């Protein structure tokens, strides 16, 4: 995947990604309209399908709200790259089919608006604007499989389908 970069700092928490005041309505489009509102009011207006977020440490810390990755994915975000992730956000993102890439080098090597190219399976991240190539540990195969099938619902559903 390839996309335009939005860049944020350390400890972007789930309240900033989607505020508690919007959580009573589960409509993903409603969540997307308010994604990152308290951190960057411009984001939800200007984000384009396929954009990539590059952030610092502990991305997604705080609440277990799955609406956080849902809001970003529905807004058009194709992947989140961070120095490190908080664990529940990381799990939630994979479970709803939003790719997450842990790459400590990335934050210092991207600016807003540059183009990132990611190969999730091979663990390669390229800043196309500068030509710099970075590597990261790919997800274990069973997590890649969840991402490939679009999320955990699809993989769990297979267990409950009648055998052909």
């Amino acid at each position, binding site marked *: 995947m390839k996309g335009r970069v939005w860049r944020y700092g350390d400890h972007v928490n789930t*309240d900033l990604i989607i505020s508690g005041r919007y959580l009573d*309505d*589960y409509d993903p489009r409603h969540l997307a309209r308010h994604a990152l509102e*308290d951190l960057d009011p411009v984001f939800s207006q200007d984000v384009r399908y396929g954009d990539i977020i590059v952030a610092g440490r*502990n991305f997604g810390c*705080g609440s*277990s709200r799955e609406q956080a990755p849902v809001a970003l994915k529905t807004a058009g975000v194709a992947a989140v790259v961070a120095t490190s992730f908080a*664990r529940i956000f990381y799990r939630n993102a994979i479970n709803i089919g939003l790719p997450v890439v842990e790459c400590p080098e990335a934050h210092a090597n991207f600016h807003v608006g540059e183009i990132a190219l990611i190969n999730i399976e091979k663990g390669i991240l390229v800043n196309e604007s500068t030509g710099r190539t970075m590597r990261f540990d790919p997800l274990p195969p069973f997590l890649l499989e969840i991402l490939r099938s679009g999320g955990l*619902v699809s993989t*769990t559903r297979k267990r409950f389908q009648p055998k052909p």
Partner: protein
Amino acid sequence: MAPTTFAQKVLAQASGEPAVEPGQIVNARIDLAMSHENAALVLRSFREIGASQVWDRDKMVILFDHRIPANTTKAAENHKAVREFVRAEGLPHFYDMREGICHQVLPEKGHVRPGMLIVGSDSHTTSYGALGAFSTGIGATEMASVWATGELWLKVPRTIRIRFEGDLLPGVMSKDVILNVIGQLGADGADYRCVEYTGPTVDAMSVASRLVLCNMAVEMGAKAGVCFPDQKVQRYLAGRTTKAYVPVVSDADAPVERTLELDVSKLGPQVACPHQVDNVRPVEEVEGLPIDQALIGSCTNGRMEDLIAAASLISGQTVAEGVRLIIVPASREVYLEAMERGILASFVRAGALVLNPGCGPCLGAHQGLLAPGERAITTTNRNFRGRMGSPEAEIYLASPLTVAASAIKGVVTDPRRLML
């Protein structure tokens, strides 16, 4: 057998493996699965999965605490959908909005026992470690998968052991201890780890105080926090559960990643300043800041000992002019006891608003939001920008004693000044 940690032992037991190592991914069988309002979201994924029924009715607890009574028609619709599901599935452990906050109600009702593997679709599920359970927060979709299969993949965490020494000074509570730890380790200082709280200071703490330590483990990124069960836990559980349990504790020489020795005998009250929980300072450094709102409650500090501590300063006093003091008992049990002991009356006489048990304004859903430019001091667990209303408001986190003292004085106040 090689010495192993609490986390290794519980996860080995739950996955049917003879032994597991940190970093290993296991498929674990879940002993208890808790959801609050977001059961409505879980339910959507559960229906998509297409399981004909839940895996084990007796291992699920559902209750409402985040938006009670319903604050919007959407919230009411979600409540209704979950009630209908609970009825259709015949789930026996459903508390609707009657009992209070999940992290107080589950221990109270005897659902939490030492050695269990518990997951909850709430990040503060780490709380149950205070009773010796391995307990962690998960998301809604994976909770749906747990409802369907009873299983979940988990990575065996490394362990950070913190050994506390020293008696706490008057005016200092377990909240001050954990804020100090988070300030030292940082908001990601225990990411993915299991944090063991040990030592004579923890041994001397009540179960309620230990719940505060484990509750806030997630604020330094921990997967789980634990205090090893002792006679206090046994006494707490007696009369709450008749089910047998086998306590699980780390071997003394288990391979932990890091051990911290902290002497808390000279620690004073601590305050987490905006807008991160690890931005912690001694109360002296922020004393005198004017406040608009003070809140005592939440899954962190809404228990009987918290209300008693607050009342020791507030009883017979008046809340400062221009300050809104909001009290939210954590559960119906706490609410009733505080009522019967006259503690709620003393708050109301002082000018406080006493709300129904629940999460209240902690997550910014309702019941006391902040306007731009306002400042609150609260016993809750997160001071993120916008957490309790306007992103232009400031949230300071502190102990029930510090919040009570500040409510009376109208400015951030060291509670020891009122305890002379």
